C-alpha cells in the first residue's frame, strides 16, 4: 500500500487558505507601516520632467523613450502641472502637437508632501483613482513622484528590516531544545532581587518574558509567565527583609517560576492568598500595588501555585505553567 502523505495546504483549502496568525500579524504590521513610513522614504526622487514651453510632440517622445504614461511640468523646480498620455492624445486629435505643453497639461493636481505618511498617498490613490502623485517638499518645490509600486516596495523593504532584527535572534534561541540532546534539558535563569529597589522592579520579569519569546513561546504564554513573574518579583521587593531570588526553569514541556527569600515569612499563607488581603505600606499603594491582588493574579496566570512559608525563616513560591506540545521543542520552529 502506498504511504499516505498529508495534504498540502493548497490541496486542503484550494486557493483560499484561511488566514494564519502569522498572516494576521503581517497585515497588521503593514497597516502600521502605512502610518509610520513617510512619503520621502519610498518616493522616486530621480524624476523625468518637462518644461511648459516645449511642444507637446516632444513629450510624446519622452513618454515613449522612458516607457512612462505622464511627466510633471516644471519651471524653476516649481510644479506647474502634469502632462499625461491622455493629454497628448487630446492634442493629437486637434492636430496641435506643435503647441506648447502649457496648453494641454493638467493643472488641477492632487499632490502629497514629503513628510506625509504613506497612508495619505494610499487614500489619494483610492479616492481619486490616480496612478501617480507628484510629491512636494517644505518649500513647495517638486521633490519626487510616488506610485503604488513605490509603496509596495517600501512595505517589503520595511518588513525585511523587521524580520532581520528580532526574528534571527529568535530563530537561533528557539532551536536550543532541538540542538542540545539530553534525557532532560532544563534552562535555568536566576535573578537576584533587591528589597526596596522599586525603580528596577520588573527588570527581571522583563528579561524573563523576552527570553521566553525568543525560545519560541507564543504571546499568550509569554504574557502569562511575565505577569506571574512580575507580581512575584514585586513581592520580593515589597515584602522581604533582604530581597530574594527569582528563578526561571524552562523545559520543553513546562515552565517553572520560583521565588525564594530568607524572611520575614508569612504567618498565615491561606489568608495571604485571599483577594484584597494586604500588608503593604502607603508608599507601595501609591505606586499602584499593594491591593492584595498579587497572589490572586499569579494564581490566574499559572497552572499550579504553591506557597510555603515559615515565619522567621523565609518563603518559597513555586509557579508552574504547562507548555502546550510543539511550542518550545517544535521541529517546525516557532512563529
Amino acid at each position: 500500500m502506498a504511504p499516505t502523505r498529508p495534504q498540502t495546504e493548497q490541496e486542503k483549502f484550494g486557493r483560499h487558505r484561511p488566514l494564519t496568525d502569522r498572516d494576521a500579524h503581517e497585515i497588521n504590521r503593514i497597516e502600521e507601516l502605512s502610518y509610520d513610513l513617510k512619503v520621502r522614504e519610498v518616493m522616486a526622487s530621480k524624476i523625468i520632467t518637462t518644461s511648459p514651453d516645449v511642444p507637446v510632440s516632444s513629450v510624446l517622445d519622452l513618454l515613449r523613450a522612458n516607457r512612462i504614461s505622464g511627466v510633471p511640468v516644471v519651471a524653476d523646480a516649481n510644479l506647474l502641472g502634469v502632462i499625461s498620455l491622455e493629454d497628448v492624445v487630446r492634442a493629437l486629435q486637434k492636430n496641435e502637437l506643435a503647441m506648447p505643453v502649457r496648453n494641454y497639461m493638467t493643472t488641477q493636481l492632487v499632490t502629497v508632501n514629503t513628510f506625509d505618511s504613506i497612508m495619505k498617498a494610499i487614500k489619494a490613490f483610492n479616492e481619486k483613482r490616480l496612478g501617480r502623485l507628484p510629491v512636494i517638499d517644505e518649500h513647495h518645490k517638486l521633490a519626487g513622484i510616488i506610485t503604488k509600486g513605490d509603496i509596495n516596495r517600501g512595505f517589503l523593504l520595511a518588513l525585511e528590516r523587521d524580520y532581520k532584527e528580532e526574528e534571527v535572534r529568535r530563530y537561533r534561541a528557539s532551536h536550543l531544545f532541538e540542538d542540545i540532546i539530553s534525557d532532560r534539558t532544563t534552562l535555568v535563569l536566576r535573578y537576584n532581587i533587591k528589597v526596596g529597589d522599586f525603580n528596577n522592579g520588573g527588570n527581571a520579569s522583563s528579561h524573563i518574558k523576552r527570553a521566553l519569546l525568543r525560545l519560541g513561546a507564543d504571546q499568550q504564554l509569554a504574557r502569562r509567565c511575565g505577569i506571574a513573574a512580575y507580581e512575584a518579583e514585586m513581592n520580593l521587593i515589597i515584602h522581604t527583609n533582604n530581597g530574594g531570588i527569582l528563578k526561571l526553569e524552562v523545559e520543553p514541556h513546562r515552565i517553572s517560576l520560583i521565588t525564594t527569600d530568607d524572611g520575614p515569612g508569612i504567618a498565615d499563607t491561606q489568608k495571604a492568598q485571599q483577594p484584597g488581603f494586604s500588608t503593604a505600606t502607603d508608599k507601595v499603594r501609591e505606586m499602584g500595588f499593594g491591593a492584595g491582588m498579587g497572589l490572586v493574579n499569579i494564581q490566574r496566570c499559572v497552572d499550579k501555585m504553591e506557597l510555603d512559608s515559615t515565619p522567621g525563616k523565609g518563603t518559597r513560591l513555586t509557579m508552574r505553567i504547562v507548555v502546550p506540545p510543539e511550542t518550545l521543542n517544535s521541529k517546525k520552529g516557532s512563529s
Partner: protein
Amino acid sequence: MNMNLTDIITIAEGTVLTPGLATGLNIHGACCADLMSDVLAYSRPRAVLITGLTNPQVVRTAQMADFRAIIFVRGKHPQQETMDIAIQENIPLISSPLGMFELSGRLHDAGLKSYENNGAD
C-alpha cells in the same frame, strides 16, 4: 473597531513624550486604571493604557500585559526613569491634558472598545 495610535493621539490632544518611537500602532482597545494589579488582572493584549500614575512600574506593567502604548491624563509628565524604560521597551508614552473620564468618553465615542476584562475570561 481597531484604531491607529496616531488618530488616538489627535483625539486625546496628546503630546508624544518618547521621540523616535513609532506611533503608527494598531490599537485594539483601551483600559483605564491607577491600580497596576487591576491592569495585570483585568486587561487584554494590544490595548492602550490610560492612567494617572507615572512611575516606572506603569511601563513594566504595560510591557508584561502586552499594552502597545500609555496615555497619562491631566497633562502629567513621567520621571526620566519611566521614559528610559519606555524607550528601551518600545512603548510610546503620550501626555493628554484631558481627565481620565473625558478622554475615555471621547475615545469610546470614536469607536474604541473597552479592553477591560471583568474577570470573566
